[in-house]
């Protein structure tokens, strides 16, 4: 401690040249601007979290800013209600199920296609790549998609939330570019000469060597499915039990066309809707907030390689 202080003092003895002053000002500017920007990303959620843990009276009086205000320290009643609301729990279950199946199918299809389409000896790969990429730039539109779901009798079933979107050309593009960039062609060729089948090469060489990009694409698929609600808005009409969490949240908060089911039950103290809403927002956002920082290293790498060339 004392030695670092001493060196700090010694550093200060260096003359304050113009260059050093500019250097220091730039340091301060960077830290302040980046610091403020990143605070704007987290403070709204700290506010919501504080609200969700506060007593009604303080929330109604607009007293809660960044710290929860409650006579009992923190108030978990709103979360208690959310967890006892059968329709919200049903939505959570639907969302988890759909996200898991969606990501699994999506990953399988993307890995298979990305490997096949990067094999130079594969005849027809250019045509197939074009066919797939064309759908990325020219979409049929929501109504034709809806009519297709109608014809396939998938409306109001769980499949309309899984199948239409679970093979994403954009993710395929990123994975393809990564396979091309990160797996040496000679490795695959020598395995072929040794008589390995493409399935073995894919399972034993390509997939184990591509963990970063696999994690990245899995995250993209899972987050995309977890967050989307417009497809459910079109496809899930009658079968209310299949509403994913984000759609449920949309009806509860944004459209405010539905109320919390537990509110109907005779409870002694009514929870203020603002507090319940806050608890719901946290509820819908926390799973992702808990996951993405751990995959950050991978998705930064993964998107860097993939995004460079389309």
């Amino acid at each position: 401690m004392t030695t670092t202080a001493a060196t700090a003092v010694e550093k200060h003895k260096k003359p304050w040249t113009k260059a050093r002053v500019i250097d220091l000002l730039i340091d301060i500017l960077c830290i302040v601007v980046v610091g403020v920007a990143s605070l704007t990303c987290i403070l709204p959620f700290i506010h919501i979290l504080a609200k969700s843990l506060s007593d009604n009276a303080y929330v109604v009086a607009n007293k809660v800013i960044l710290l929860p205000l409650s006579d009992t320290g923190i108030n978990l009643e709103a979360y208690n209600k959310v967890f006892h609301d059968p329709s919200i729990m049903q939505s959570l279950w639907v969302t988890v199920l759909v996200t898991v199946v969606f990501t699994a199918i999506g990953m399988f299809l993307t890995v298979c296609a990305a490997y096949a389409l990067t094999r130079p000896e594969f005849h027809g790969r250019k045509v197939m790549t074009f066919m797939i990429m064309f759908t990325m730039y020219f979409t049929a539109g929501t109504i034709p998609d809806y009519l297709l779901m109608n014809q396939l009798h998938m409306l109001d079933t769980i499949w309309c939330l899984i199948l239409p979107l679970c093979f994403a050309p954009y993710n395929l593009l990123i994975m393809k570019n990564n396979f091309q960039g990160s797996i040496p062609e000679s490795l695959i060729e020598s395995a072929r000469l040794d008589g390995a089948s493409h399935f073995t090469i894919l399972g034993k060489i390509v997939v184990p060597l591509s963990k970063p990009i696999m994690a990245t694409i899995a995250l993209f698929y899972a987050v995309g499915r977890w967050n989307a609600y417009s497809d459910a808005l079109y496809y899930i009409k009658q079968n209310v039990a299949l509403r994913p969490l984000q759609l449920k949240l949309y009806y509860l908060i944004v459209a405010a066309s539905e109320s919390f089911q537990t509110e109907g039950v005779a409870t002694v103290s009514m929870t203020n809707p603002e507090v319940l809403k806050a608890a719901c927002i946290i509820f819908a956002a926390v799973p992702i907030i808990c996951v993405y920082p751990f995959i950050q290293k991978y998705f930064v790498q993964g998107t860097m390689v993939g995004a460079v060339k389309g």
Partner: protein
Amino acid sequence: MAKQKSTAVQPSANTLKKKGPMYYLKRDWQLYALMLLPMLFIIVFKYLAYTGLSVAFLDYKIGKGYAGSKFVGLEIFKKVFKHRDFTKAVVNTLLLNVLDLLFSFPMPIILALLLNEIRVKWFKRVTQTLLYLPHFLSWVVIGATAYAMFATNTGVVNTLIANAGHSPIPFLQEDAWWLFSYVLIGIWQTMGWGTIIYLAAITNVNAELYEAAKVDGANRWQQCLHVTLPCIRSTIVVMLIMQLGKLMGGSFERIVALSNAKATEFTTTIPVLVYKWFQGNKFSESTALGLFQSVIGVILVILSDKIAKKLGEDGLL
């Protein structure tokens, strides 16, 4: 098809290596097997959906199906183009996207340049994690949070404004302010995620250039301006052109999550109108509008690809 034609034109050149599709199918059957399911998904869920575009040329009623609906040619399009909401939707779509382009586009570049200058490792790591957060949140969560922040009576920002002795600002409940908030939230949502690509470009800058600049007496500000920026110029151009290709697109989820009954002037965009007409069972009009948007979108993408290639960049396609 194409192969047969080429054999007809120059039979001599192809006799050496010409092998039928069955040969390749047999040799690389494993690769074709791997492509089977992905192609099935694409054909069923994308190409079959294209057949639904025919609805734009029919007087379609959902009960009658394709066969029972009358072919009306371009009548539906004429009707759509004449509709009073159509012009409004196109203008709003362009307006919101142009504002996004003007204000959301430069922010990641600035942030990436600043992040690059930060030398405190832990600070850089933590701020980056925080900056990526909004990208991972759904528009419903962002919309609900926006109301908790900006609502006129209950929003925390307005509480703070009121505590400071000013009158509250209707951030989301008055048209002009809504536009402001919409753009602001867009900047906030994209600024962190957008830095990834620019930071990648910055790490690729040749270190010798900085050494040379230092020898010439350039300070960090000048290095940033005369070394880093010119070196990431091509990335910036490519990103800008990609944005141009999206000018006619629209985020349905973003607008719906942020809209309310009080500020409706700018919320009627093409995807919102498609949904509105869908709810009114106007399938043909809705499809025609979507098709119009898709076609303009493809034209914009092709144009921006052409521009990129003219400028000597790689292009997108």
